[in-house]
């Protein structure tokens, strides 16, 4: 640790946190989302970006995939075959997350990134971990704060820094339009249950990052719990009591269970065929990772809440709309089979 400490002391005086000024013109209105440790090179010289976690990986990939050094999460397997081969085959680098890091700092140095970017709700733990990495490596570290609601600004701000303001503006427009759907929702909001895990009995509590899609699509979280928190387990008895109008999931195992297990058949949402299995390729529509990939989920859910029922024509329509999103954000237009195959039910 002696080496680290000397390094630390040496850098202490020179480098302090210098929050970047918001890049947007309406700076007065926008929130302060960026926290920067170190000095960024000018946008034209940002060629090598290291994403510290999966949400940042998605954000950087949508804005400037050519700058991405590798993936913080594994992109092997069926799930990521949607991503163009050149990007899918980028190395799996692991994540930087304080104690939970799976990337060695030396590997980080060897990669020589121009900037490290992390996205997520920023708290002091994250700030101090980022500061420390910057102090140890001298690489500028950018933390992007905010929830899904802030995604237009996140896209714009990061797009500016990566030197792709035009592309960022396009994506931000899509995001803004998507986030606007909530204004058209009626006052009487249907309740939606997010089923996670193989049993479908893990869920996000109201206000959690996991259920942002439900809230932003104009649904009401079926879970009636006052206390805040993130994920929790519930029981079927509670679900029977809460009577969700709709169940959404990304877990194929649970979806199968919900169709077959006797106990689930008593829920009106299952009886009325209001249980939907959403794609998680290449990134989830509801969750996993919590990044801009969820915008398409908001669009889908808002539409489904306003026009309940599932018709074959809906699936086709959705395959088209989703393909538009994939084209715009992921630079690839998948065939209908990934949205209407056996692995999803939209």
């Amino acid at each position, binding site marked *: 640790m002696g080496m680290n400490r000397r390094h630390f002391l040496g850098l202490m005086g020179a480098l302090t946190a210098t929050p970047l000024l918001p890049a947007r013109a309406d700076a007065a209105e926008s929130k302060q989302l960026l926290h920067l440790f170190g000095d960024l090179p000018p946008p034209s010289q940002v060629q090598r970006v290291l994403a510290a976690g999966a949400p940042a990986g998605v954000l950087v990939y949508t804005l400037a995939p050519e700058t991405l050094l590798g993936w913080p999460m594994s992109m092997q397997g069926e799930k990521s075959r949607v991503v163009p081969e050149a990007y899918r085959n980028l190395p799996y680098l692991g994540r930087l997350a304080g104690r939970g890091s799976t990337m060695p700092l030396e590997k980080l140095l060897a990669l020589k990134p121009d900037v490290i970017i992390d996205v997520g709700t920023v708290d002091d733990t994250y700030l101090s971990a980022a500061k420390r990495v910057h102090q140890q490596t001298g690489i500028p570290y950018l933390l992007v704060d905010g929830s899904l609601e802030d995604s237009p600004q996140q896209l714009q701000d990061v797009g500016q820094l990566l030197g792709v303001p035009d592309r960022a503006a396009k994506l931000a427009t899509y995001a803004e339009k998507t986030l606007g759907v909530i204004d058209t929702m009626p006052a009487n909001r249907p309740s939606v249950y997010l089923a996670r895990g*193989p*049993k479908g*009995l893990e869920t996000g509590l109201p206000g959690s990052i996991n259920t942002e899609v439900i809230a932003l699509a104009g649904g009401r979280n079926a879970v009636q719990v006052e206390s805040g928190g993130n994920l929790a387990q519930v029981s079927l008895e509670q679900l029977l009591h809460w009577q969700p109008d709709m169940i959404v999931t990304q*877990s194929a195992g*649970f979806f199968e*269970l919900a169709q077959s*297990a*006797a106990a689930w058949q008593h829920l009106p949402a299952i009886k009325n065929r209001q249980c939907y299995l959403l794609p998680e390729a290449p990134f989830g529509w509801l969750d996993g990772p919590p990044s801009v990939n969820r915008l398409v989920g908001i669009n889908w859910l808002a539409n489904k809440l306003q026009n309940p029922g599932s018709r074959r024509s809906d699936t086709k329509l959705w395959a088209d709309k989703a393909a538009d999103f994939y084209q715009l954000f992921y630079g690839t237009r998948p065939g209908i089979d990934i949205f209407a195959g056996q692995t999803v039910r939209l």
Partner: protein
Amino acid sequence: MRMKPADRRFHWSFLILFLMVVVIAALAIGQYTLAPSAVLKALLAPAIALPDTSSDAGIVIWNLRLPRIAAGLLVGAALAAAGTAYQGMFRNPLVSPDILGVSAGAGLGASLAILLGLSLPFVQGLAFAGGLIAVGTVYWVSGLVRRHDPILVLVLSGVAVGTLFGAGISLIKVLADPSVQLPSITFWLLGGLNGASREDLMLALPLVLAGLVPMILLRWHVNLLALADEEAAALGVDVHKLRRILIVAATLMTAAAVSIAGIVGWVGLVIPHVARLIAGSEFSRLLPTSILLGAGFLVIADTLARSVASIELPLGILTALVGAPAFIWLLARTGRSG
């Protein structure tokens, strides 16, 4: 230590009464508010052929609470019985059913299934298989070492293999998707009976019975394991064979219980002690006492898990929260009177 027949009758009727009270209370308590009369009506509906089983009360009682209570009874009984057998076999009161690595193995199997995104039957199947593999490995490893005390070798191999499998679980946690898979793994490792269904019971019940029957048949022999191996052998017991049968039986039961409930600690460690305080250490009386207490205790813990807060609390936490103070109280009380 022998009880008089009257004492014995009192002992069993007390335990059965305890279990009945627990089950009745568990039936009446839950997040879906049902009046006691509605519970009774729903329970009796099939018997008196009321066409009422499709009502909400009927569903809650017959499809949700009863299977869950039955699963609680089964898991509690299995863990307590396995713990009792192991404590007798290892001549050590600090031994719990996961001494030979069954929980670590099951945890690794389940975590792996969740990491691979498999469905629930696979999660349960891999958990069961993982438990058997871990204990099988321990038994195999201990067979390789011949020059030491066999019990000590078994325990040490169990610790080593358990640690190895535990490291595997940690590795999977690091590799898992932190927003989707990691929470599922964590919840599984904390244990819980939410979602327990008749299908689960149908899978676990035969396995638990398959483990229980040899224990009951061999109940007289198990007492002799308290003696040194040579002395037991002199009394005509094939110690190695008996030990092997008991390990297989206890492992089957524990792995089956863990595969439907996740890792539930404390029951298998402490319930045998409580049973010993009540019934003495004679195995033929200790085993059923332990089973009845374990079943009742787990149902109490699970009823709290599903009713105390507005969300489900993990069962593994509840068993410790309820069990530890109760155990300390009992220890202090019996210490005074004895």
